[in-house]
């Protein structure tokens, strides 16, 4: 393995910077957040180009899912960081009077962010915003599978951000392995469960806390809906499947659950929607991202290979190997034990699974690993409640898809196989902070019963105190609780 050039020195510099205290000041944090805003504003076209190169992402999509997200997140942090940094007062039992308690957020130190290739700009910069807001120094390793974006970040970030505190290290598995051998104060990873396990094992050696943003098969439940709503739902489903990076998104829709009787109309409406969004011909899929690379292209195509799976294709199914394009593809009831229904698809294939009753969807979901997101299109309040309380997932969104990602007020993160830890808005700040408990006392009002030698009076005092029985305490202290009087020895 080739040693990463200057790694030890870089990390040494970042540790020194953190030690100097510079990154703790609110002004430094704000300056860096402003610099991120400036970076994306001044380099919008370069970002669009890089995303076009890496993924064939259309500029509107790039703005919606990458530039826009970063700007929104950075502005929100800029506005709120001072408030987030303030200590929170803790309520105290009277027994400890006079004292004050507070919870003070403090930066963790030097953090590592490993981002992924599907949203190579936002999934890199959004966690960086959290890390900086919380006052940490950062190493960002963008994914080597989106090389144009990786090199854009590596070349541009040093011109805008404080390079003594924020460094980009490019590279593939070798680089990641070397980075993981180092001691970090937090590792934030976006990617697959397989790599997530490797990251956490490496982190365990140094007792480093980790946030794992993984994926999973995000189901969409489509209940019966009036026609007008159904039309909106179909658009939102198509938008949530092929819209974000052609299905290569951790919160993208993986499959649909629908009652048997609605399956054919669903297929028809989806087909119409695909035509409207992406046109009719394979050659002209301008609004659709391509598959990131040959490896993933083969992986997605292989999902269709199984004859019983390919037999279930009801729309699409063609691909263009040269341009790494796969057509939006719909499958009706592929076998449940086929790879397409056991692995995260992460591509533009959409299986529709039919059920006799839509309520069966709960059991269907619960018999599989917990997904990052569940989407449910329904107007049935009872069903909503049932889904909410009986299924488990990172998030659940009713009557829309993907949009929960935009909600800064909601924590974004998985549960079970879809990961743990969370970020976005204030949650990003918390993820990169340690909540330090601080208790202030003074020297007055000393409670004698705290100290040995122990006796029954002290024991009784403490019992009353723990029950917050202040009247009892007064009685005890004034000697009116007779039984203790004789035993008082101090």
């Amino acid at each position: 393995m080739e040693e990463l050039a200057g790694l030890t020195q870089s990390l040494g510099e970042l540790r020194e910077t953190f030690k100097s205290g510079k990154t703790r000041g609110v002004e430094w944090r704000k300056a860096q957040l402003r610099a991120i805003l400036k970076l994306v504003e001044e380099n919008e076209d370069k970002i669009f180009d890089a995303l076009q190169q890496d993924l064939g992402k259309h500029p509107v999509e790039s703005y919606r899912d990458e530039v826009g997200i970063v700007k929104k997140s950075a502005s929100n942090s800029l506005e709120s960081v001072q408030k987030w940094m303030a200590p929170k007062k803790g309520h105290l039992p009277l027994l400890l009077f006079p004292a004050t308690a507070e919870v003070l957020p403090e930066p963790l130190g030097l953090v590592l962010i490993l981002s992924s290739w599907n949203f190579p700009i936002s999934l890199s910069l959004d966690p960086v915003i959290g890390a900086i807001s919380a006052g940490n120094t950062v190493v960002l390793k963008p994914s080597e599978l989106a090389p144009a974006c990786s090199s854009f970040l590596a070349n541009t970030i040093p011109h805008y951000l404080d390079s003594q505190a924020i460094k980009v290290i490019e590279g593939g598995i070798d680089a990641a392995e070397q980075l993981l051998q180092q001691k970090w104060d937090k590792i934030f990873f976006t990617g697959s469960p397989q790599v997530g396990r490797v990251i956490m094992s490496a982190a365990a050696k140094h007792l480093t806390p980790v946030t794992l943003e993984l994926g999973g098969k995000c189901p969409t439940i489509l209940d019966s809906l009036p026609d007008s709503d159904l039309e909106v739902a179909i658009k939102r489903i198509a938008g949530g499947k092929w819209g974000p990076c052609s299905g290569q998104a951790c919160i993208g829709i993986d499959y649909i659950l629908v009652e048997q009787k609605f399956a054919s109309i669903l297929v028809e409406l989806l087909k119409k929607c695909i035509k409207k969004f992406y046109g009719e011909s394979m050659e002209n899929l301008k609004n659709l991202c391509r598959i990131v690379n040959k490896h993933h292209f083969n992986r997605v195509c292989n999902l269709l290979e199984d004859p019983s799976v390919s037999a279930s294709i009801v729309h699409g199914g063609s691909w263009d190997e040269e341009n790494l394009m796969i057509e939006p593809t719909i499958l009706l009831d592929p076998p449940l034990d086929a790879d397409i229904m056991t692995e995260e698809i992460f591509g533009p294939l959409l299986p529709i699974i039919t059920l006799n009753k839509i309520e069966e969807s709960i059991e269907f979901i619960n018999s599989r690993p917990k997904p990052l997101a569940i989407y449910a299109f329904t107007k049935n309040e009872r069903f909503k409640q049932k889904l909410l309380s009986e299924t488990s997932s990172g998030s659940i969104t009713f009557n829309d898809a993907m949009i929960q990602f935009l909600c800064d007020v909601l924590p974004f993160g998985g549960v079970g196989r879809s990961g743990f830890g969370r970020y976005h808005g204030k949650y990003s700040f918390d993820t990169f902070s340690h909540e330090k408990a601080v208790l202030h006392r003074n020297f007055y009002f000393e409670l004698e019963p705290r100290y040995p030698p122990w006796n029954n009076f002290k024991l009784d005092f403490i019992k009353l105190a723990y029950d917050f029985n202040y009247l009892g305490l007064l009685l005890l202290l004034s000697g009116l609780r007779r039984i203790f009087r004789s035993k008082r020895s101090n």
Partner: protein
Amino acid sequence: MAFFDPTATVKELRGTFDSGKTKSYEWRVSQLKALLKLASFHEKEIIDALHSDLSKPELESFLFEIALMKTGCKLALKELRSWMAPEKAKTSMTTFPSSAEIVPEPLGVVLVISAWNYPFLLSLDPVIGAIAAGNTVVLKPSEIAPATSSVLAKLLGQYMDCSAVKVIEGAVPETTALLEQKWDKILYTGNGKVGRIVMSAAAKHLTPVVLELGGKSPVIVDSDIDLKVSARRIIAGKWGCNNGQACISPDYIITTKDYVSELIDALSSELEKFYGKDPFKSDDLSRIVNSNHFHRLCKLLDDDKVSGKIVHGGQKDITNLKIAPTLLLDVPEDSLIMNEEIFGPLLPIITVNKLEESFNIIKSKEKPLAAYLFTNNKKLKEDFISNISAGGLVVNDTAMHVAVSTLPFGGVGESGMGAYHGKFSFDTFSHQKAVLLRSFAGDLAARYPPYTQKKQKLLRALLNGSLIGIIRVLLGWE
């Protein structure tokens, strides 16, 4: 003991969890009440077990084990409804019209591995959080406190819903077998070495962990203080907490060269008041838990660099596993005692010329679970709070922060990760599920392809939350 079948245990608990039984408010309340009952009805038995495991003084057992656990339980009972309630979140114009909430949900089947020093509290305090959050639980008490372990197994079996809460007793083989299972959360209290093993095992199943570890918790003592009160508070936190065998015990003191003799005098005289001239005769000190730890502590004392530095105490009684409260002055930085968590009745005192130097000494070591400062100097307090990183800080007292349920209890860096106590316990054992509710109205074509310039402008305005911008784009003014 017959070897248990860990797979079957977890399977049964998962079955219970899947039945949904543990999710109800009523079930959680019934279990919390059962815990309270168990602690009240069997106080004597618990105190006896703690005495057998550690010679823990009755009052200490009551104060730091039973009462703290009951307080935690009562708080959970009182607040449970509000903890369980979904939290409304304010949504922005970007996702308008919508409403959002954060719904806490139980994680599933959780494992609590507890420690021997507070074997009752450190077992049941996390269990309270796990139950309050609606999980099923396996508790593995420490085999190093066998009497308490067996009392816990017996009482929990008697009082709790056995299909949801189980105690597995045992040592390394049992723990290893448990760690091979898939859990939805593991809370471990103990040391960093085992903490690493727990986390590595958890990584295989992507299980989040809370690691409650220890570290060398320093005490900085300034000279402008009420010395008597300070000395007593240091003693209460050191020897009054299981004879120094507590993760938040003061591990070493830093004070100035000018002040150190006064401090030693005060500590010595208060120690004598508390424990008498012969501390081995006092019933108010715990013993060392076992001969392993006794020898470990002796090794720290017998180090050539250290043995001449004793200024108070130093007596050892191997038959009764007792070590007297011991003060050491100016042990070298490179001695074993200054590089390991002491976890016993030895207290080294390091002197500096200026108190400010203490910060560098603390910062040169791993982050401790707690750090304490005694001073009346406002500036020093502020510097301490902003400069010293530790799980928790206390100014002018020791260990008291543990009893404050509104403060999170947990470490940072080498002292661990994750936190619990009060509402933090509930959160630790819950997943905060993000819920977004949308209606079918207010659909925005700009979200969908085919993409155009106008759509990009509209999205731009929307993401920026600029109402004017949105109107301008919609009216075609831009």
